[in-house]
């Protein structure tokens, strides 16, 4: 379960130091999307700290976070959980293998009018 | 002909409250370090004038180490903070003049760190021994 490489990556990318967390739960106390989430902001921080990252990667919670940054604003220790959520989200997006959109599918979906930009962003969005 | 083993001469300035006590503790615990190290007791590391350090080199020292309380632990509250700035600038200047930077060192050693004192001295003596004799800050008149 321990994924130290990914853990380091997440910490580096997010700039968050989960060890600063004192488990007060203010992030979760303030989170407007709390009810929608399987894993709550304080759990993100705790699970990254312990290296228990796999469940987070596979959780819908990633996409429930609104990135409203209330937790970032309110955290008394400056841990900034939303940045960590974002980092896990990016990690999931970058994960290969279970892409829902394959490059081969693209020609059939696009026509002359489709702007390049749209293709690129669609590819990014759906190939998680 | 037998080649005499090179023994460096090391002068260690130790503050009375932490490092000198640390050196005493090293003694209490019978922790060995080379006899090349000779300690001079000063009330605080901030008593050490750059002139003393240069004087030691002039008189034939091969290395000079300055030991004081850890920052924040100074018996006199702030002495070692001044030491830190003075020595950073002095050492940087010595380096600028092309003098081996390894010959000078500042180390914070508390009264509880007998082991650290001995380890530091062992390391410093090894470093200076590897450098060899001090040629760049010597005064030939003082050589035997």
């Amino acid at each position, binding site marked *: 379960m321990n994924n130290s490489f990914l853990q380091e990556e997440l910490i580096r990318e997010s700039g968050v130091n989960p060890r600063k967390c004192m488990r007060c739960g203010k992030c979760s106390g303030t989170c407007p999307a709390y009810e929608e989430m399987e894993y709550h902001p304080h759990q993100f921080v705790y699970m990254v700290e312990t290296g228990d990252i796999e469940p987070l990667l596979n959780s819908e919670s990633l996409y429930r976070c609104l990135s409203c940054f209330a937790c970032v604003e309110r955290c008394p220790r400056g841990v900034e959980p939303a940045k960590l959520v974002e980092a896990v989200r990016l990690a999931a997006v970058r994960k290969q293998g279970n892409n829902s959109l394959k490059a081969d599918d693209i020609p059939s979906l696009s026509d002359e009018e489709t702007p390049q930009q749209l293709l690129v962003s669609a590819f990014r969005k759906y190939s998680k | 002909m037998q080649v005499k083993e090179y023994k460096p001469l090391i002068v260690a300035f130790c503050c009375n409250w932490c490092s000198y006590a640390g050196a005493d503790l090293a003694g209490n615990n019978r922790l060995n370090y080379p006899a090349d190290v000779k300690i001079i007791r000063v009330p605080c590391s901030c008593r050490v004038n750059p002139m003393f350090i240069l004087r030691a080199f002039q*008189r*034939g020292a091969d290395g000079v180490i300055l030991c004081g309380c850890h920052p924040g632990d100074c018996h006199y509250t702030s002495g070692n903070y001044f030491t830190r700035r003075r020595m950073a600038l002095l050492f940087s200047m010595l380096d600028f003049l092309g003098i081996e930077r390894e010959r000078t060192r500042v180390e914070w050693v508390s009264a509880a760190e007998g082991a650290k004192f001995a380890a530091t001295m062992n390391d410093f003596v090894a470093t200076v021994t590897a450098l060899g004799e001090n040629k760049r800050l010597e005064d030939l*008149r*003082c050589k*035997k």
Partner: protein
Amino acid sequence: MRKCSLSAQDTLFAKLAADATLYLPVDTADGATYQKWESGKVWSDALNTNKSPKEFFFPQMEDLMAFKTAGKTIELIDTRSETEDFIVFGVRACDAKSFEVLDRVFLTEPQDSYYANRRAHGTIVTVACTRPIETCFCQTFGIDAAEPQGDVSVWKTETDLYFNANTPRGEALLQKIEGLTEEADASAVEAQKEQIQKVLKKLPLKDLTTDGFGGDKTEALFDRPEWKTLSEACLGCGTCTFVCPTCQCYDIKDFSTGNGVVRFRCWDSCMYSDFTKMAHGNNRLTQVERFRQRFMHKLVYYPANNDGLYSCVGCGRCLAKCPISMNIVKVMKTLGGKETC
């Protein structure tokens, strides 16, 4: 008079350096300095070297003796050794004259054996100044830049070097290079001398005289109020004394080495506040007094004791080097002149 082609210069120097150390002025990025000649070193045409050649005979620092201590025992060590022969080549007329000033101090009884030793082994080869500069005023002291003294005088023309021995030691030196030189007539040299005289007449300080100075002028000069204004900006550094070819004051000090003592002497400067410090303190407590001392010594006290010889040779180094541009010329112009005395 002998001559040798300029193109044979290096051969000449090699010959001279064969059995004596040869020093001559060499250009560096920081001005001309005397250096030991070795193949490849080029003789500089510069008029003044940074430091005067006095240090060949009276070095800035020299050990006089030593003591060795062990516990409570002490042993005296004579550190003197016989100096090896050396030649100082390319000395200008002013600097050459300075040796006379120094000799009168060091070689009169009791003789300074350290100085005498060096003097006995050094040969001075002078060279005439073809291009004197604005700071030159050797004429004031009766020195002829076209007729330099020393053991051997040299004139350097476009093509040749002309040699003339002035002393037996000079004769010996010319003897040594006889094979490289040939007998020559003096016409080219005379032409050069004339040329030099023309330039000397153009020099800005040509009219500077010693009028108003001399061994009998102590009372007339000592209390002059101008000393105060003249010395106003003096920093009390030792630049003028250390670049001066005639300043000969020194201090004797002991240096404890840990295993003994080295007794050495080093140049001192009357401009320093701790000059001739004694048990009671210093003789001259203010910079005005110290400043006055230096010039009174050169222009009054020294001539008083040395048959009217001034201890300034007009080399102009102090004019060029003083940090605040105060110098003997300004002093002489302010205090001297016929009308003032």
